[in-house]
C-alpha cells in the first residue's frame, strides 16, 4: 500500500500495454513489428506488474508451471506448425506449398500458417521474458 498512485496507474495502463503487445503480435504480417517485439511488450507488462505489486502477486498471476509449459509447448508449437507441411506431403515448414489457404492479402487472417506461428512465438517470448525476470528476481533460499 506504499504507492497508491503507481498501482492505480498501472492497473489502468497495463491492460492497454498488453493489448498493444497482442496487437503487435497479431498484426506482424501486415504492419511493422512482429511476434518477437510484441511478445517482449506483453512480457514487459507482466514485469511491470510484478515490480509494482510485488513478487508474490506477480508469481500468482503467472505460476512457474504455466511458464514451463508455455516454454516447452510454445517452442514445440513452432515445430508442429512445420510438421503440418510434412503431413501434407510438402517439405518441413512449408506454407503455400502445403496447400494452405493464404487468405485475402492484407487481412488479419492472411498468410496461412504465418499468423499461427507468430502467435505461438509471441506468447512464448512473453513467457520467456517473465521466466527470465522471475528467475533473476527470486532469491535462492
Amino acid at each position, binding site marked *: 500500500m506504499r504507492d497508491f498512485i503507481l498501482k492505480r496507474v498501472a492497473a489502468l495502463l497495463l491492460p492497454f500495454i498488453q493489448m498493444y503487445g497482442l496487437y503487435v503480435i497479431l498484426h*506482424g504480417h501486415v504492419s511493422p513489428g*512482429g511476434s518477437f517485439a510484441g511478445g517482449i511488450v506483453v512480457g514487459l507488462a507482466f514485469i511491470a506488474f510484478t515490480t509494482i505489486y510485488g513478487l508474490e502477486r506477480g508469481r500468482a498471476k503467472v505460476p512457474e508451471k504455466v511458464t514451463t509449459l508455455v516454454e516447452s509447448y510454445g517452442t514445440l508449437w513452432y515445430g508442429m506448425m512445420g510438421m503440418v507441411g510434412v503431413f501434407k506431403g510438402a517439405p518441413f515448414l512449408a506454407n*503455400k506449398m502445403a496447400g494452405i489457404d493464404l487468405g485475402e492479402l*492484407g487481412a488479419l487472417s*492472411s498468410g496461412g500458417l504465418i499468423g499461427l506461428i507468430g502467435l505461438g512465438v509471441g506468447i512464448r517470448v512473453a513467457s520467456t521474458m517473465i521466466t*527470465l525476470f522471475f528467475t533473476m528476481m527470486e532469491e535462492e533460499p
Partner: protein
Amino acid sequence: MKLRTLPILFILLLAAYVVLVAVAELPPYGMSGNPVQNQVSEGYIENAWEETGVLNMITAIVLDYRAYDTMFETIVLFTAVLAVIITLKTTEKEGGGK
C-alpha cells in the same frame, strides 16, 4: 587507462585500420545497384505477397522463406532460458516446483 590495456589498444587500433581499409572498399552505402540488391532481394520484393500472402516482407522472410532460421531463433531463446534456470535454480523444491 592502465598500462595493461595499451598493447590491446594498439592491436585493436591496428585491426581498426585494416578493417576500415576493407570497409572503404565496400560497395557505396545506400545505392540501388549494390550487389546486395540482386535477384534474391528482387525475388522477395516481387513475389512475397503472392507466395506467402502477407504484406510485410520481413515477416514473410522471417516466418516463411527463412522460417528454419526463425525456428532456431526460438530455440536459442529456449536454450537461454534453460541455461539461466540451470544456472540459478540449483536447489530444487519438492514436488516439481509449485
